[in-house]
């Protein structure tokens, strides 16, 4: 049997120290990690259970923004009254993620850290080649079944999609990941695959996500998360968009616009080009549709995922129009 040790951390420092050891992994809700251990992707020597740490599940919202502890459950954040009213896109992204059972187990820290759903990544026995899993081994997905793979941010080494919904909403609203004292913008926290797809986050051994903060903004207050998929529920996004709008006093001219894409890129994808094209303009359907095409500038498909290049701009456009029409 593959033995591993289990440590229940009592303090933040103990958790960090234990997780710095080679082969150690943090265990939160376990909904990703236990799965990956079963399919042979994660082979931890020790699990450091952080779910008993005190105070890390708090959700605080005030005029400056939201501070969400890393151990807050997805379901709690989704249902939090102030998150719903001031960051509706964040709440909606969580509500549309996974299933009720998973949301009750899973934590915000673990959610950001979830791994790709690339089927080749998850089946090491049959597909030894995977640069994300074993650097330099190749990529089984390229030339294979690619319907769910990314069209943005890919490299020759890896085309895996970052699957999470929450991080897509976070990146739209300039959220910050707190690794104890160190803080890093969500956009910088997730790394492009480049030649090193095994390195997914700007986090070092012994570091741990302690919280996520989201600055308050008018665009976050008027925001939407739109997730499109074949199955109505319990499926990752074929394409999704987090959108927030702040209008000038005329109620039509766009003062601030936030757009991020999910389900189509190797990391949560901020669509700055779409934002820039529409800022200062009056919201109307034709210009929104035209600008939304910029969301997939530079996209590259691998056959079966071509539809994402068509789909993503439509999702962005609908999300902007829907958000713009909100009372």
């Amino acid at each position: 049997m593959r033995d591993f040790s289990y440590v229940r951390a009592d303090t933040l420092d103990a958790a960090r120290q234990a997780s710095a050891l080679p082969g150690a992994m943090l265990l939160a809700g376990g909904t990703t990690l236990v799965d990956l251990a079963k399919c042979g992707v994660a082979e931890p020597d020790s699990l450091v259970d952080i779910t008993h740490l005190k105070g890390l599940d708090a959700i605080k919202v005030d005029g400056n923004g939201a501070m969400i502890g890393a151990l807050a459950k997805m379901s709690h954040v989704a249902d939090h009254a102030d998150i719903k009213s001031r960051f509706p896109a964040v709440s909606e992204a969580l509500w549309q993620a996974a299933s009720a059972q998973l949301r009750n187990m899973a934590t915000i820290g673990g959610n950001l850290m979830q791994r790709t759903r690339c089927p080749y990544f998850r089946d090491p026995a049959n597909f030894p080649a995977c640069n994300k899993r074993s650097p330099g081994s190749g990529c089984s997905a390229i030339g294979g079944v690619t319907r769910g793979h990314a069209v943005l941010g890919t490299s020759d080494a890896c085309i895996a999609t970052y699957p999470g919904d929450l991080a897509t909403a976070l990146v739209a609203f300039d959220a910050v990941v707190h690794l104890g004292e160190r803080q890093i913008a969500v956009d910088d926290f997730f790394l492009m695959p480049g030649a090193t797809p095994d390195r997914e986050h700007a986090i070092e051994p012994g570091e741990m996500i302690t919280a996520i903060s989201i600055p308050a903004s008018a665009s976050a207050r008027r925001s939407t998360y739109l997730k499109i998929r074949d199955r109505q529920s319990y499926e990752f996004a074929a394409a999704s968009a987090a959108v927030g709008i702040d209008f000038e006093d005329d109620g039509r001219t766009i003062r601030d616009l936030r757009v991020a894409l999910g389900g189509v890129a190797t990391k949560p994808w901020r669509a700055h080009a779409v934002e820039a094209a529409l800022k200062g303009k009056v919201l109307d359907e034709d210009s929104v549709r035209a600008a939304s095409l910029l969301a997939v500038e530079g996209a590259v498909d691998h056959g079966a995922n071509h539809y994402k290049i068509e789909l993503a701009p439509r999702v962005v456009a609908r999300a902007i129009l829907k958000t713009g029409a909100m009372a």
Partner: protein
Amino acid sequence: MTIHDPRTRHGDASDGAMDQVGGRLSRVDGPAKMTGAAKYAVEQQLDGLTYGVLVESTIASGKVRSIDISAAEAAPGVLKVLTPDTIMSLRTASDWFGTPPPDKPYCPLARDITFSGQHVAAIIAETFEQAVAAAAMVKVSYDETPAITDLSDGKAGDGIPIDAMTKEWGDAQGAFAAAPVRICGAYNTPREYQAPMEPHGLIARWEGDKLTVWEPSQWLDGMARTYAEWFGVPFENVRLVSPYIGGGFGSKALALGHGAVAAAAAKMLGRPVRVVMTRPQTFTGYGGRAATRQTVTIGADTNGIIQSIVHRGVNETSIDGMWVEPLGVVTSIMYATPNFSSKQNVVRVNSVVPGAMRAPGENPSAFGIESAIDELSYEVGIDPLEIRLRNYAEQDPEAKKAWSTRQLREAFAAGAERFGWARRTPEPRSMRDGNQLIGWGVAAGTYPVRRAYGEAVVRILADGSVEVESSSIDMGQGTYTILAQTAAETVGVPADDVVVKLGDSRFPRAGVAGGSRLAGVMTGAVYKAATSALDQLIGLAISDPRSPFHTLQANTLVVANGRIGSPRGDGPDLSIAELLASVGRDHIEATGDTMPANSTAEDRYKNYTTIATSVPHTEGDYSRHSWCAHFIEVRVDEDFGTVRVSRVVSALDSGRLYNPKLAESQWKGGIIMGIGQALLEEGIVDRRHGRIVNNNLGDYLVPTNADIPDIDVISVGIPDLHSSVLGGKGVGELAIVGVAPAIANAVFHATGKRIRDLPITLEKLI
């Protein structure tokens, strides 16, 4: 001799009080399942239990060059490592028709690899975790050869013609060429999987040369026979136990390779062995529905009257197994046509041999013909419902026999009325709600009445309760409940006083729970056994000198609600328990079966352990089928191509319903599965590796509640005594048939796009 009037009325389709046949009694096994008290086969706790884990091929075609088991053998807790070289020798078993097997050994672990995921070795260990760890240490090396991955593989070829599938009358080609209106479409369905909630698995235990197998099973006697033949022991030495089944859909009817491995390991070790498939193994350990391709060409006149149908079909099978998914079965009977031709080929690909999945044959067949006639309706500009009525088959066009009952016209009428079909605007893209294009589609479905024979014991016990025993099974379709109702009504006791025991091959025998036949078979057998138990009870009451009724000189008595009295209400009135006590009996027992009277022991064995004795649905003067019509509304988002089913009205003819509540559930289950088939389900093959990559329930999508609207089902059946003893026809498989084409037809109406490849995923519509 029956000395009392049979109580079973043959009135309308849903007659009967709650406790009786036709009543809406809730599932009697429901509370046990809801509370977790129901113990499933592999949950047995046995002393000395060991755990087996399978090692599978990672290539799709080639040979095993060597297997290095040294590390695995040395791993902690490992008791045995089985490979083709070390597993005990088994005999080949007969197939499900009972065809005598070739006299050669059978090895459930493969040296010649014909598909990815084939069992090549197995670890048996003290704990499950030890077995999993050791299985990962087995190193298999292969000599790989190119695989034929699926039907579209260039190497696949045209396949093998299956002459038995050829059906022809008239001059189909000539009439097609001469027809003023001609349409032709190619319709494809992918590999689909049964995906039962309970994965396959078993515990096998030997005591001397007696084998007990706890295994979810749709067919105890058939599987017991296979185990007996593999191990060369008498049939009686094998006991199968399967009290509850967590979903089968056709996949749990046969003993499979993993079962052979478990039973062989148990024999070799002298300890019980448990093997349970992982979810990914449920995609390769046995077959789902074969991928199919059909072309349907229809020639018609300008009024939409069909002159000719030419149908060609292909399904995939494995390299060394044969599975025919009969694709012309609905094509040949749904519509009247003077000229017809259907032929089918089977193509070998490197996959596990496909298997039965809810309405094998009828399901993909209906997707072809029910899409094609919809295409014809637009071609000639006739309403899709109207064109079906114009081509209504008044008799079986193929067998040229009268239908036993065919309430399809009634189904169309009732469904259309409830759905509001008359309000449909004919043009595609003519109905809309904001970004949503709305489409209304209709399609029909059918399933033959498969008949066989069954056997049951009914006991009236000293306390007045009734016990029913049968080796048939309940996989959620309601056998426990309807047999309780049948016995309750026939004997005259409340259903609460009936205990039904199923799922043990020691009980009186039953054939396969497949082809929607079990309810008709078993209600008939229980009815007969209960009738003869009641005869005995009344006989005793009248003739036993100790009975209070003895002096009454009655020639019959009435049993109702657990009490026995005279028809005129004079004389004594006793509970069944009191009567049995008065005559000094502790029980009455009767066996009943529906076998022909002169059946030999060999006939019976064959009947219960093979499907060879199934009575053809066109036997005698009639052609017997269930029928249905589905009316479905979809909403397609114009930008995203996402299809949501927003309304379903289905009217179904399953003859008399033994329990309408349970029949409705089964119909709804079939419709839900049909929605999954239409919109979501597809085993996706990596064409370089010949491997299904979405082999888990996160990636192989089945519908969630959010995908399913309220489903309105209407029973239009009437009792059909040509089909079964009590007048029912098949329920379980019928309702899935026709759902996928109804959705595809609705999608066409919504969007103007005809999707002929299932599933209808969003990229096909954007």
